[in-house]
């Protein structure tokens, strides 16, 4: 029986090639996504592990504020550390060496006056760590910075910005700092850490320009004496630290960094690509189902013959399913190999878009192979079940008679069920879109799924009529060929509807992205148009932590052409114990450029101990004007800021 299936498969390879291709593409996309994210994860692992190779312990502020799960611009901030902790740590028995570290934001300006680096990769400004054990950066040309206004930059950034040793340029931290490039560095042997730009100051320069707080540090990297383990080192340092300061082993920090990158970046990236793989597989399901339905219809006589010769229903069912399994296995295996190609291709595409992924080689794990094969196989088999059942129901008598034409599809229950599903689905979508309220997305999504089901069920009912109408001009345009094509489409409405359903999904996906992009644009346009009362907005060209010097707002306001200007700042703070992204602005001027639609209270006379929140937030939290709300900054009490929880008043 298996021989029969496989021989039948070979005899029909042309038709099944289409099916196999559909499965192949879906699986290849899935495997490609998995391979790429595994590769990225492995690359990040290696990168961070080697960057931290000489670090046995890290001392840093224990407080970190995260808004929105730490994703997006200004979403996370960690408190700073007093420089005096360095001496405390240095005195600990077992410490072989340490490096104070400052890391922050610095946008390097190239020779042409434009910012170096693409959107997305970090723009790092840091202190140049001279001890090579604590950094992966190596001096390749020139010398280390010796003065506050001297910097080293990584080779890729220097090349992109047209900068050479001896050149003078600007680093925006975000204040513009005039600096002289005195050295070019590499990250190991690479020209940079991915596409991140790196600008290294002296420690004093970094304190002044990057942190803007002399006497403070981001963290301290510590190396242990031989024979002292990372954990032992941390255990010795920990009791001596001031409150709010923590010590972690080098391994913990590496794991944390890798996890952060994986969760923040890879998860989103992966989900995005997996959606595409899912859609590809959905389309594949339709295609497989169609092909097998045709194959089964074509060999009704063969199925009947097998039944007449003594094959049981299960055997006929099994023979069709065996074909599906064989196609699924072959196509999925090819898909896994194709996935490697897709991963390489995606990588190349992202690099081309200025979004280089630090991926080296390709990582193919057993899980990827297993998941891809299983999903491919499952999709093929599931899509083949219905045709296989149909084949098993062929009566043996059909071997002796002419095969009846498939007249299924136009039954009344089908028409009713399809119509009800489609109408209910569309109503749900419409009510969700126009009505608003709670769970709009869920309701709209459920409605869309209902509509899809309805259309799939209803399809065969209208396919004949639709083919007749759409195909009406064909006989005149194409003569006999045209009328044959039309007859063909009308003859088997279920097949026609199935093919159309696959197209429907494809068009649906394209529409989804078009509508999504248009909605996003229009809602931004609308909110800007209704709330922005100003004439000009000055914004940094990229997302991330890019910004301007606080002085810029005042400078712009000072221009004779400008009546009023206000700077807008954003930061992550803890509000009522939860990380939140907050904006800061000059309250008096804000109202002149932005229509905030204040419902209660007043924004214009907001003090440093007050907070304005949206109606939505106020409702969610149960706040009213005058409610006390505890707010904490990343490090609890940064210099110059109120350290005690302040009563802030929503407006």
């Amino acid at each position, binding site marked *: *029986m298996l*021989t*029969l299936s496989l*021989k*039948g498969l*070979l*005899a029909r390879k042309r038709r099944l090639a289409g099916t196999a291709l559909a499965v192949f593409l879906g699986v290849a996309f899935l495997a490609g996504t998995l391979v790429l994210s595994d590769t990225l994860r492995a690359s990040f692992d290696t990168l961070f592990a080697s960057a931290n190779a000489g670090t046995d312990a890290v001392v840093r502020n224990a407080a970190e504020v995260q808004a929105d799960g730490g994703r997006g611009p200004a979403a996370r901030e960690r408190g700073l550390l007093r420089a005096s902790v360095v001496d405390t740590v240095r005195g600990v028995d077992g410490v072989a060496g340490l490096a104070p570290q400052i890391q922050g934001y610095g946008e390097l300006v190239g020779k042409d006056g434009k910012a170096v680096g693409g959107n997305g990769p970090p723009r790092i400004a840091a202190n140049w760590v001279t001890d090579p054990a604590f950094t992966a950066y190596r001096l390749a040309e020139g010398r280390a910075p010796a003065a506050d206004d001297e910097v080293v930059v990584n080779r890729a950034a220097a090349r992109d910005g047209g900068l050479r040793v001896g050149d003078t340029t600007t680093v925006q931290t975000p204040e513009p700092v005039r600096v002289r490039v005195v050295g070019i560095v590499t990250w190991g042997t690479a020209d940079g850490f991915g596409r991140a730009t790196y600008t290294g100051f002296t420690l004093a320069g970094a304190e002044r320009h990057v942190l803007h707080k002399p006497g403070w540090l981001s963290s301290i990297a510590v190396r242990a004496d031989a024979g002292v383990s990372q954990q032992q080192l941390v255990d010795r340092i920990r009791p001596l630290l001031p409150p709010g300061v923590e010590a972690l082993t080098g391994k913990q920090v590496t794991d944390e960094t890798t996890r952060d990158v994986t969760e923040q970046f890879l998860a989103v990236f992966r989900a995005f690509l997996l959606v595409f793989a899912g859609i590809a597989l959905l389309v594949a399901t339709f295609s497989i189902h169609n092909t097998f339905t045709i194959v089964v219809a074509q060999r009704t*006589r*063969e199925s009947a*013959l*097998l*039944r*007449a*010769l*003594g*094959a*049981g*229903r299960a*055997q006929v069912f099994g023979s069709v399913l065996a074909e599906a399994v064989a196609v699924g296995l072959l196509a999925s295996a090819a898909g896994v190999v194709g996935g490697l190609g897709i991963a390489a291709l995606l990588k190349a595409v992202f690099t081309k878009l200025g979004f280089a992924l630090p991926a080296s080689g390709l990582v193919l794990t057993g899980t990827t192979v297993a998941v891809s094969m299983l999903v491919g196989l499952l999709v093929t088999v599931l899509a083949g079940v219905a045709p296989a059942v149909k084949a098993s129901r062929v*009566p*043996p*008598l059909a*071997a*002796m008679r002419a095969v009846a034409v498939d007249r299924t599809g136009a039954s009344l229950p089908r028409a009713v069920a399809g119509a009800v599903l489609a109408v209910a689905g569309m109503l749900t979508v419409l009510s969700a879109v126009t009505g608003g309220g709670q769970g709009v997305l869920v309701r709209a999504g459920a409605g869309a799924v209902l509509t899809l089901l309805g259309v799939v069920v209803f399809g065969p009912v209208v396919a004949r009529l639709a083919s007749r109408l759409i195909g009406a001009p064909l006989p005149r345009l194409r003569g006999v060929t045209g009328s044959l094509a039309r007859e063909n489409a009308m003859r088997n409405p279920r097949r026609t509807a199935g093919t159309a359903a696959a197209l429907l999904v494809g068009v649906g996906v394209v529409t989804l992205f078009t509508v999504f992009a248009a909605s996003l644009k229009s809602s931004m346009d609308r909110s800007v148009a209704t709330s922005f009362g100003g004439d000009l907005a000055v914004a940094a060209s990229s997302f991330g932590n890019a910004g301007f010097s606080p002085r810029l707002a005042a400078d712009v306001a000072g221009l004779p052409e400008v009546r009023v200007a206000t700077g807008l700042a954003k930061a992550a703070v803890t509000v009522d114990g939860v990380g939140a992204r907050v904006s800061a602005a000059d309250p008096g001027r804000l109202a002149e450029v932005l229509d905030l639609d204040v419902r209660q209270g007043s924004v214009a006379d907001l003090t440093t101990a007050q907070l304005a929140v949206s109606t939505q937030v106020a409702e969610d939290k149960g706040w009213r004007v005058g409610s006390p709300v505890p707010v904490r900054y990343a490090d609890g009490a940064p210099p110059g800021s109120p350290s005690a929880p302040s009563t802030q008043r929503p407006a």
Partner: protein
Amino acid sequence: MHATKVYGSGDTAVRALDDVTVDFPAGRFTAIMGPSGSGKSTLMHCVAGLDTLTSGHAYIGGVELSGLSDRELTLLRRKRVGFVFQAYNLIPTLTAAENIALPLRLAGAAPDPDWFRMVIDTVGLADRLTHRPAELSGGQQQRVAVARALVGRPSVVFADEPTGNVDSRAGAEILDFLRHAVRELGQTVVMVTHDAAAASYSDSVLFLSDGRIVDRLDRPTQSGILDRLRVLEADSSC
């Protein structure tokens, strides 16, 4: 077998078999003849368990067919019935040998090598076993089909116009094999045909008209059959 088969219902009902009582004795070669629409194919389908009776009973070797489930009918076809079709109905992707062994394979049994060789020798296919149906002539394909019907040693072989698609020389060979299977191997064969020459190979001929058995001829000759047919046609035309 005692049977009535009605297709459709009410005014449009067609009595394809009208209260027919018939018995096909074991070890004999019986031919069923009759004009088109006389019910001869229906009779064969019903007695072979491919179609169900409206009323009455059909037995194969003492087993009543109307009470059998689909699974039991499958087992019955597998073990006790062999078919030869007008259109050969071989699986195009399998070789001649694989086609012949197919019923055994479906039953999960291995062919008895002696019997397999004897059947193949009988139908004269020893040198054609590795060929696909497309590489065989019509007569050779039908010989493969006959071998396939015989290989499982069924209680009865049903042949539906087995010579309908082959030339007369190949037809004669096939009928020789069927007769040989009955005489030498002790098989039971029931054959539907409208060809008097084919029917003359049988041990007895049943004549069907309008769903009824109207005549019977033992040890037939071709001229004897033609005489009866002429009488039948004259009866039905007046």
